């Protein structure tokens, strides 16, 4: 049997078709449903080392948290696997984080399936997917994104518990009147809280505050 390829993707139609296509090209392809990092790592330990095709966004874990592909890259590298990132969208920070953690490259799902297949096969054959300059620029991007994330976390940590709850509700698309109803407080109180949130997050509008929260790490993409 050929080189081992393990496909880690929560979209099974995609992983099934990729697995079958790779097998048709003589590779020993497997797929795993990522219901948790431990499942992925266990599966990786059971197979001979090879190439992992890892989705950036692995969906919800059974415990309700979100599984981010980049977080498992280091563990897979330690077990001797090469990691290739596939992503459904241009999630630059995610790709940068994965490459900084040791992924050998990334490929978009939206490119043609033939092109995607070629990239995976090239990676399995050990060909390099990016130049040193590209690698360096990804690392630089990752540093920038990390600095941004730290700044974001610093600002978010200023919020009181109630302010965090209010911000979450704002980000879920609730109206201020509904939030006042929810906490059984007056509209004025909620408006004061919103103003305080904007001040602490150093933004001038609710839109920016919500956008900021969505960029924060440990949240659904």
């Amino acid at each position: 049997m050929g080189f081992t390829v393990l496909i880690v993707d929560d979209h099974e139609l995609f992983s099934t078709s990729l697995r079958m296509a790779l097998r048709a090209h003589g590779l020993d392809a497997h797929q795993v449903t990522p219901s948790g990092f431990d499942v992925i790592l266990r599966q990786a330990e059971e197979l001979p080392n090879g190439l992992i095709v890892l989705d950036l966004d692995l969906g919800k874990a059974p415990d309700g948290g979100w599984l981010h592909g980049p977080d498992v890259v280091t563990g897979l590298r330690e077990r001797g696997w090469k990691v290739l990132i596939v992503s459904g969208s241009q999630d630059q920070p995610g790709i940068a984080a994965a490459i900084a953690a040791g992924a050998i490259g990334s490929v978009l799902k939206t490119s043609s399936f033939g092109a995607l297949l070629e990239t995976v096969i090239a990676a399995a054959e050990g060909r390099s997917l990016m130049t040193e300059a590209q690698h360096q620029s990804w690392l630089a991007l990752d540093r920038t994104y990390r600095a941004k994330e730290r700044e974001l976390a610093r600002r978010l940590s200023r919020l009181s518990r109630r302010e965090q709850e209010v911000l979450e509700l704002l980000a879920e698309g609730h109206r201020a009147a509904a939030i006042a109803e929810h906490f059984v407080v007056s509209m004025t109180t909620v408006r004061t809280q919103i103003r305080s949130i904007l001040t602490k997050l150093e933004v001038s509008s609710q839109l920016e505050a919500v956008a900021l929260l969505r960029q924060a790490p440990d949240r659904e993409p």
Partner: protein
Amino acid sequence: MSAQRGRPLSDTPRLRRPWRVVSADLLVVSGAGLLIVFLTWSAWARYALPSDQISLVLATTAAACAAMGAVLAAVVHRMSTNRGAAWISAALTMYGVVVVPAITIGTTVDRGAPVVMAIRFVAPVIMITLLFIAVWSPPRRHAIRPLTISLAGLSVVVAAAVLALVAPGATELVTSNAGSWIGLACSLCLAGFALALVSVARGSAPLARVGIGMAVIGLGYAYKVSKHAPVNEVGLTYASVRLLGVLVMLVGLVQLARVTLQIAHEAHLEHQEELRLAKVGLARVEERDHELRNGIAGLAGMTHLLVDSNIDDSGSLCVTVSAELARLESMLANSAENTRSVYLTGSVISDLTALRKRAGMNIHCEVEDDLWTEGSRNALAQVLTNVLANCARHAPGSPVRVWAFRWRGRIRICVSDSGPGVPPGQEDLAFARGTRGEHSQGQGLGLHICRELLAADGATIELCSAVPTGATVVVELPLIARPRAHADVAAVASAG
């Protein structure tokens, strides 16, 4: 703001009846006016106070307050659609910058100088004209700036001064006539009262205050011109009454500015909220796009495989592809308008089972009559389609039984097959995204999506293991009474 039961809205300005506010104002202002007259006429004020100096100080304060009022009115005009405010702003500018200094200057320069007299006469005339225009508030096609009006007024004053220099005789003719000064004072009173009345009629108490203030100034002026000759010194009574009028006006304008700011602030907050909601909606669309892209990538991959003739498992691939298509469709249906309606559960079930039967499924269905529910018919149809597709995939060829009945005040729909079922204890896992049977080829076809679709209507979906084998999916919907319109139809049908 739908439900604010029991709690008053503390942040909306309460509307009091303007005429009540205004009559209270009139009482207070006339009381203060009488007090001023009484105090300034008393012997103590006449002989003990340095009347001229105090009058000068009062004049300076009045001019400064008028200027403040002009600025506030200009701000109100810029921040709202209040057309009158632009003219009031210009009138106050004229008053603070020209009228008050021109009257006060009489104490320091040559008293009867024709230039001063001309300015003293023309500036109030312009001011009164501006006030009448404010009362009228003509609709204009182009925005007019208070500054432009003020500059135009000032240039008229300058022109009058030049005219007085050129033809002092003609100026004398107007200014030496006591009647023209009395007429001026009466016009000012009239303008003030007209503004107050019109504002009360329009429901604006703050603007009515501006009018009252103007009228007070007019009354003071009438007193002055009737008592002293216009060339004489200002007089303590007039200076005090004038300041009272200006202060009343200022109070009105401060209120007007506050209300205007409050309205602008409310509008700003509303816009912020709308923008935020748009952003949240956009983010949801982006999430869905992400899912759709993933689905399309999978479908593209499958197509790629199907073109390759050396794949022999095309049958199971087709099932997977159709399942994925159903998932993508349900995702779009979820976001499209899912209108709530009252409908018969049985009709949805029998439609779907008939469809499956035609497709060759061994399916049997029993549905009780009159199982009415309220919610999205489309959502239930999507969910049952998904459930039946799951049966077809996990237990191919096995008989499927669907039955719907009343159960503890709700509607229960059970769909069971006799396939491999679910391992005990893992029933809930089936609702995690992407879970599927160990030996299954297919997609863990979003039972969690089904759960989300139903949750919106207060319905639930559970997966149970059946004895001895097979899986049963239990959907529970709220049961409602038969709608009146349908009850009538049924009654007519049974009677006929």
